[in-house]
């Protein structure tokens, strides 16, 4: 009796929620911001190519685990919507599904350093170099892979499941090469660009929970938004998305979080 009563009220509640949810149905807004390094920009260390020196030695290779631009923008910060069941704008989903994501082995580094691919979307790992590479993809929920990609070759992959945190991609032949793969079940993820800016378009209007991650810092647990220091346990933070778009402005990251 008690149980059926509970089920009934749960059922009612979900109906109410569904109705409420659909009220703001077709409103979508963009979210943007800019990650700023809260200290003197560190210089990127130069890497030494000790394998295939004839080819890789020609390129200037820099460590990419923390890339801070001239105006202190922090590149390669990953922002994604944590809720996997978030409502997705059908147009965005369609557009994204048709597009291939390319991860290139170029000039003995990966381009881009952090790539975002959706579940079901095609990822092409190609090799534009004149030497062979292998791409060791260390996914956790998806089956990991390690293919040899000869000069000029490519392999394609699709992912059936999301990854809770970005998966590392390495090349065993050239140990300095490293990239990250963000695998999410929806189009709502972004990687900050060289100037530190990011934008996620067409999010459902209302409150969404974001998660912030960076390869050196891990989950970003603290940040200063609009001059206000905020904690974000496991990099999680709720923000309100407005139909007119929401700009988080400058998100200042304490250098200490990158020195763990």
């Amino acid at each position, binding site marked *: 009796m008690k149980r059926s009563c509970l089920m009934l009220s749960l059922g009612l509640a979900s109906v109410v929620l569904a109705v409420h949810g659909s009220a703001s149905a077709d409103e979508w807004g963009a979210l943007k911001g800019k990650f700023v390094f809260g200290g003197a920009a560190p210089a990127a260390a130069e890497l030494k190519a000790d394998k295939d020196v004839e080819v890789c030695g020609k390129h200037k290779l820099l460590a990419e685990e923390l890339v801070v631009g001239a105006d202190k923008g922090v590149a390669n910060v990953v922002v994604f919507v944590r809720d996997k069941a978030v409502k997705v704008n059908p147009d965005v989903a369609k557009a994204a599904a048709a597009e291939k994501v390319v991860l290139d082995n170029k000039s003995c580094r990966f381009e881009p350093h952090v790539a975002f691919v959706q579940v079901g979307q095609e990822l092409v790992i190609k090799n534009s170099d004149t030497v062979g590479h292998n791409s060791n993809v260390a996914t956790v929920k998806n089956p990991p892979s390690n293919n040899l990609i000869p000069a000029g070759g490519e392999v394609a992959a699709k992912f059936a499941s999301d990854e809770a945190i970005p998966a590392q991609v390495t090349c065993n032949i050239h*140990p300095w090469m490293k990239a990250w793969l963000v695998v999410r079940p929806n189009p709502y993820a972004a990687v900050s660009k060289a100037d530190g800016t990011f934008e996620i378009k067409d999010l459902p209007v209302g409150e969404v929970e974001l998660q912030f991650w960076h390869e050196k810092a891990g989950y970003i647990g603290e940040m200063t938004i609009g001059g206000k220091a905020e904690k974000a346990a496991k990099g999680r933070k709720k923000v309100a998305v407005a139909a007119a778009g929401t700009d988080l402005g400058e998100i200042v990251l304490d250098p200490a979080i990158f020195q*763990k």
Partner: protein
Amino acid sequence: MTNTQSSIRPAFPVVLAIVALVAAGCGKTQPASFRLNMVQATKTAAPEAGLEMPWAKWSQDRQSQVATILEAMFGTPDEPLALPESGLDESKLRLAAGPVRSDIVGRKNGLYREHCVHCHGISGDGMGPTAAFLNPYPRDYRPGKFKFKSTWRDAKPTHGDLVHVLNQGIVGTSMPSFALLPPAQVDALAEYVRYLSIRGEAELALYTYAEQELGGDEKLPTTREFLVDEILTPVVEKWAAADESQIPIAAVPAGVDFGLPASDLANRESVARGKALFLGDGGCVKCHGVTALGDGQANDYDDWNKAIVEVSKEVAGSLDTSRQAPTGEMSPEKRAEHRTRAEWLHAFVEVLEGDALRPRTIPPRNLRQGIYRGGRRPLDLYRRLYTGINGAPMPGVGPSGPGGKGSVADAEIWHIVNYIRSLPYEFDGELGADRPMVAKDRF
């Protein structure tokens, strides 16, 4: 009288000590218990801001919760348990588990502890008492990765694959052949390896879930739905799919005759083609070197060792940063956070020293020795080339899954096999082992 007394007195404590020693020796020994994967337990227990209780107590609680859950799901080394959803055969597990003994009909029990535990450890962590003295280290089953199998790289080995390794042993390592055991015993051991592996992966899944989903003082859910559907089933499904995950074997092309030596005229063109692929699209040369002596790449690690190397490096770096942090300038709140973090890092160092073997690099195989760990049949070599070696840096030249495209066509892989077969018998100087070779001369 006084004389005898004085002679007894000094002896009395000695007698007591002997009685105590004998009593302790006669006492029941502790029942065997599984050890937690302490490296993972600690790695996933980084202190968070806003934790109510002291970190040490919090992480201790998490560990004992994981231990309780695992015991409920898998039992103990003496009393293994196979949930119906695990797909494990409990009667086989019982044959393999527990102390070495004979059952009522005289059948040998406790096979794992008779044959395997010394190297692979009671928990299948590859850290038995002999482990530190062996090179390579015994396999740690807990990440669920196996090298020598007939399936796609990311797929689990079939039961037959595990039985094959047990029967053949692994040449060039300390793993002996168990071909002299009755087949039923080998069968039970293979199932027990699967059990330890599934258990280890479930443990990893619990830590991962806790790290990624739980906040603050939250505890792991203990409902059957969670433990079976979210933790156990994803692991079991992969094992259940092993039989359907075998790689296709291309027909051996014309001009390849494995019945004849690789040096035979009949194989000459095939061997030459294999050599071109070895140096070209196959990419083998990158690690095995122009001379195939395994000298192309010397500083890489396999996945098991790499996990320890990476985490050790991170912890050492963090500890350095932590020591240099200007605690004097910190707010009390920041200082408390800093202290908790340092406590975690120190605990981590202890775990890495006590619960992990010193990492070792994995040299690419010297192909001129004729020792192939996964087996020397052309079929074995074909499989190693096709998928690469799971857990090792060796990439595959075949596709990564059904319908994919590899860097070398399936049938062409047989030529590389033929070339590899020729290497132990080839004159060393033929490739110019004594002088460096430039790329344009390789063909």
